């Protein structure tokens, strides 16, 4: 008991855990990890899960539509982009959920504002000071080794804001090597400089994580990257798998892929990215299945918006609204969720949403992690996909 109190006192003094009200009600997280994949720039969902059964699709996209005979059918209305062959395999195994018509009320078409809405789970006209994941851990503190890791060149995303323990690394080996030189810092509460405080907290987090990685990370000799492709997305997926197999208590790992902002010459660019995406997911699945951790992960994609239904003059698409997303894992209810949006009943040229992304988040919080939901998600009925 004494030890524990001393520990809390130390954490509070170091300034790291201020604003952590539920600390004493800490709850074990049963090794359930959420992998977030950000498809940066706004992926074109219409050319990802393709409504090939609708002639309007071919009318509106004369130059950039995907030929019927190349599409991998899901049913007689929609099918996978040919680059997504590996996703189709996962789908057939029942481990992939296709989330259709995902969006939110009063959508914003600015990259920066829209991703902020997604990452904070705010209303369209509401500005919140932290990400939705940050908010979940502030309200449900668990004794995690780290609350979140950002893998590769990428932003904190829904883990922005104060009060949780996050780490942003290129890859674990580089992190271990570089962090060796970092000097320990004596806690100093008299610093009022915001930027300096921020920097010192990052340094403290590095020093804490350094010990953790040194103790727990399995070596790349034991778990090799055989079976993973050489591109940076697959590398990030490999490192993500490695961290999960190392048995860290880390509920969130974020990776990203991009840029999907295909205003011009979309066909080749998107085909390349979708292949990297699908292959990376399949490689990740194989690695986890082999090691028996497949049921402990839930992978979910997000992106700032979908794209305009009608192609533009540059064989590309402009910013749009509703979009398709994916969820993958051993415990997932595979299949189709939500409705495929209509191509005739458009919202100013864009797809209408029928599934609020906050319903997905709400299910992640309660059904995946088993936490108490947060205020900003409460009023959205949980999507039953886990």
């Amino acid at each position, binding site marked *: 008991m004494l030890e524990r109190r001393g520990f809390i006192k130390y954490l509070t003094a170091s300034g790291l855990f201020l604003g952590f009200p539920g600390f004493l009600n800490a709850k074990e997280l049963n090794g359930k990890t959420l992998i977030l994949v950000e498809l940066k*720039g706004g992926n074109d969902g219409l050319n990802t899960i393709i409504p090939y059964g609708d002639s309007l699709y071919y009318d509106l996209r004369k130059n950039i539509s995907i030929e019927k005979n190349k599409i991998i059918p899901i049913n007689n209305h929609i099918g996978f982009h040919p680059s997504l062959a590996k996703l189709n395999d996962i789908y057939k195994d029942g481990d992939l959920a296709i989330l259709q018509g995902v969006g939110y009320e009063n959508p*914003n*078409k*600015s*990259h*920066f*504002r829209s991703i902020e809405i997604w990452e904070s789970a705010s209303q369209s006209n509401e500005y919140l000071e932290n990400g939705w994941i940050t908010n979940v851990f502030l309200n449900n503190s668990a004794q995690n080794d780290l609350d979140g890791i*950002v893998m590769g*060149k990428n932003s*904190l995303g829904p883990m922005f804001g104060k009060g949780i323990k996050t*780490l*942003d*690394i*290129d890859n674990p080996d*580089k*992190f271990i090597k*570089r*962090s060796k*030189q*970092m*000097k320990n*810092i004596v806690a*100093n509460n008299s610093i009022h*400089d*915001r*930027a*300096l405080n*921020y*920097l*010192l907290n*990052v*340094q403290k*987090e*590095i020093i804490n*994580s350094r010990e953790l990685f040194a103790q727990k990370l399995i070596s790349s000799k034991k778990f090799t990257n055989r079976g993973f492709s050489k591109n940076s997305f697959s590398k990030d997926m490999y490192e993500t798998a490695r961290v999960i197999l190392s048995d860290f208590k880390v509920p969130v790992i974020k990776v990203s892929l991009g*840029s999907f*902002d295909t*205003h*011009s010459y979309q066909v080749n660019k998107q085909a390349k990215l979708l292949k990297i995406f699908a292959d990376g997911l399949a490689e990740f699945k194989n690695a986890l299945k082999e090691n028996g951790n497949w049921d402990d992960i839930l992978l979910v994609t997000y992106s700032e918006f979908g794209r305009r239904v009608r192609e*533009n*003059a*540059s064989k*590309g698409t*402009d*910013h749009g609204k509703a979009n398709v997303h994916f969820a993958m894992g051993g415990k997932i209810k595979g299949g189709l969720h939500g409705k495929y949006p209509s191509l005739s009943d458009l919202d*100013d040229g864009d797809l209408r949403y029928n599934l609020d992304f906050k319903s997905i988040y709400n299910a992640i919080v309660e059904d995946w992690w088993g936490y108490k939901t947060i205020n900003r998600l409460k009023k959205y009925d949980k999507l039953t996909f886990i």
Partner: protein
Amino acid sequence: MFTKLFVILMLPFVTFALNLKDAKHLMDRTSFGLTQKEFQILKNKNKKEAVNWLINQNKKDYEPDLPSWANSPLIKTKPMKKMSTQERKIFRQKYRKRVLSLKIWWLKTMLKTETPLREKMTLFWHNHFTSSIKKVRSPYLMLKQNELLRQNALGNFGVFLHVISKDPAMILYLDNQSNKKQKANENFAREVMELFTLGVGHYSEKDVKESARAYTGWHVNLKKMKFVYVKKFHDYHEKSFLGENGNFDGDDVLNIILKKKQTAKFITLKFYKEFINDNDINQSEIARISDIFYRSNYDISTLLKEILLSPEFWSEKNRAVLVKSPVELIVGTLRALDIQPKNVKSLVYILKQLKQDLFDPPNVKGWSSGVDWLDSSSVLLRNQTISRFTRGKEMGKKVSMMMQEKENFTFKKGISKNKKIEFFKEYFLPMDPIHPINHKYKIKKIIANLLKDPVYQLK
């Protein structure tokens, strides 16, 4: 009576000569740190004189030496698809070499420039009117754009907005090349309002669509690599934009945007965040300064002068609150130590790893700034880079030797070691270090430790 009181209160603010701390603050925020030479000039000036000197010094016509290929764009003899594998390989090699040469050139320019404010502003505008080599695919056009940014860096914002909108690299970057009547591409129309002038919330989706039609026909002639107005692509129908109706073209639309005071406010706020404080903002100063900026008909030097002479700029609470960008950290360190590195190429790679790859910002919003630079991987790499500098590895001349020379250069014989340490502390750091100075160490080790202190990352 009040005026008198005001004058008395303001007196210390304008009359006294700059001390080392003030000179460092001014140059940290507006240039790439303070050099010895600049300190010798600034220490005899009061704040107003210093700001005037700085701006006038940097307003002179100035064009750095350009790379040898500056006037000869890489031309494909035939389209990529028709090239043989070998030809394609050779072309790609040439292209990559030029991109690297472009980045090295700008970094060298920043390292040796005599007009650091001008370079700093060029970097500022590169991050405002962004374009990326990854999309533009032409080192030649990116260089032309860079020259344009430099020429207009302290000029008139209205003129600047018009010329940058017709800049070939910009047209390619924001897809105006394919913006044609009946098939508009909205990319440029949206970003010009969201990021270049008004900011989110000051225009509607309809304004985006209508103004996109006004910019139709602003294209690049890819043979001559020059702007061209293609009349047959222009939409001559009436447009309704920000409450005005007419048969507008792109220039008309930009003029309507410039008529809005919000544009002056948006730019003033961006300056405030860049030069004073990016988090704690004095809104009444924004209102006052943006009004002056608007009335000056968007004179950038006037805006900058008002920002630098604002009491907020010199206020203690706004010192050492900004985070150095990777470029500022690296260029500033080498300038402060008087090092002209032989291997600039390695610095280009370091900048890329630190996520500020010149000519290649991550997206149209540019690099995010402030504490966003400080994620754990960047913090580690920043520290590692600075340690490497202080050990002198990779650099043409050993840093430790330079430090020894500096010690001899700066002080007259007989000055106490404590005084020397005090000088270096203020010369290198914007506030007292986190790690206490061990006075027993040799000066060069003390300097190395100052550079490795967390506070060194701030300005």
